[in-house]
């Protein structure tokens, strides 16, 4: 009976010791359901053979950085070429290639309602630093009624952020 009590006390002391020695992030998943987050580096947009205008390419990139930061899915959102990405282990790289681009017209939309839509479709790939593909999605963004043509890039970036949020990423 006394030996059992002694062994239980030893186990309790052991558990307390392990908890105090192990770093907090290692236990975060067990204790609070928090998983260590990935960082993401947003690469420049690849035109992919489409005749996308430079302002659209830049607008997609900038809106992606903004929307991914807003979504708070990643612990940090880094820009393409950012030197602080060097030496980071939990880094994913977001590659975006334009698959199709249909330029629209705001005036046509205002006059006819049904024509003049700006349509964008991109292929997003999340890769690790060593090039291993983690996630691939084809996402589109359109503007059909109200707003300027560049609004399509905002819609697209929001859809990409939502698609990444819904996806299950492996632990870093």
């Amino acid at each position, binding site marked *: 009976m006394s030996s059992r009590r002694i062994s239980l006390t030893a186990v309790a002391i052991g558990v307390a010791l392990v908890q105090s020695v192990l770093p907090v992030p290692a236990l975060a998943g067990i204790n609070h359901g928090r998983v260590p987050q990935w960082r993401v580096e947003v690469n420049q947009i690849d035109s992919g053979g489409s005749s996308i205008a430079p*302002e659209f390419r*830049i*607008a997609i*990139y900038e809106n992606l950085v903004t929307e991914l930061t807003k979504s708070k899915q990643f612990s940090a959102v*880094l820009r393409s070429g950012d*030197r602080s990405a060097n030496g980071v282990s939990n880094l994913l790289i977001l590659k975006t290639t334009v698959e199709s681009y249909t330029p629209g017209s*705001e*005036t046509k939309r*205002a006059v006819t309602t049904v024509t003049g839509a700006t349509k964008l479709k991109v292929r997003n790939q999340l890769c690790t630093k060593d090039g291993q593909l983690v996630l691939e999605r084809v996402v589109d963004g359109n503007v059909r009624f109200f707003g300027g043509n*560049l609004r399509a890039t905002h819609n697209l970036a929001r859809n990409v952020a939502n698609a990444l949020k819904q996806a299950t990423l492996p632990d870093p």
Partner: protein
Amino acid sequence: MTRTKNMCYERVSSNLLFRILRCLVPASCFAASLIAHDFDQVRTASSSPVLRARAVLGLEGVANNSMGELSIQDDVFVYSRREGPTVRMPLSEIQGAFLSQEDKQVGGMPMALGRAATPYGGGRVIGLFAHKKYDFMTLEYFDSNGGFHGTIYQLSKGQGQVLADELGAKGVHVSGLEMASAKQRLETNNVK
């Protein structure tokens, strides 16, 4: 008798109100477009022109779609606003500039609502005339940490070319509509 008279009076006044509103909606849209035109002024300083421009997106520390003034002072690209910080960017940081042109509806959201409220398809007719061409200047640059940035400025038609010429004269690589056509013209002249 008086009741009938009152009802008749109410009907007449509501009809009158409806007519006044119908007249006011296009008039307010027209006024909005005139206000939009008034913003297209170019102030010329002694050395380089100061251009009114809208920072569409990508400018750090500045809200999207905020109006301001663009200028090139020595070797620095300056975007200043009446309120808020002035953004300065050395021209050496700019990797490339691209000039393009796009057609946009004038008047923004009030105009869009006015168009939607105009009866008998009048909004479509207004939309047909209430548009304007704008120049878009896209700049690509790297920050001090090596991160890639892009900013888009919207200028009135013709002002983009002025800015492109200024940037080109300072050694920034500029491409786009007019630049390409000007180069082609120069090449064909040389061949002749």
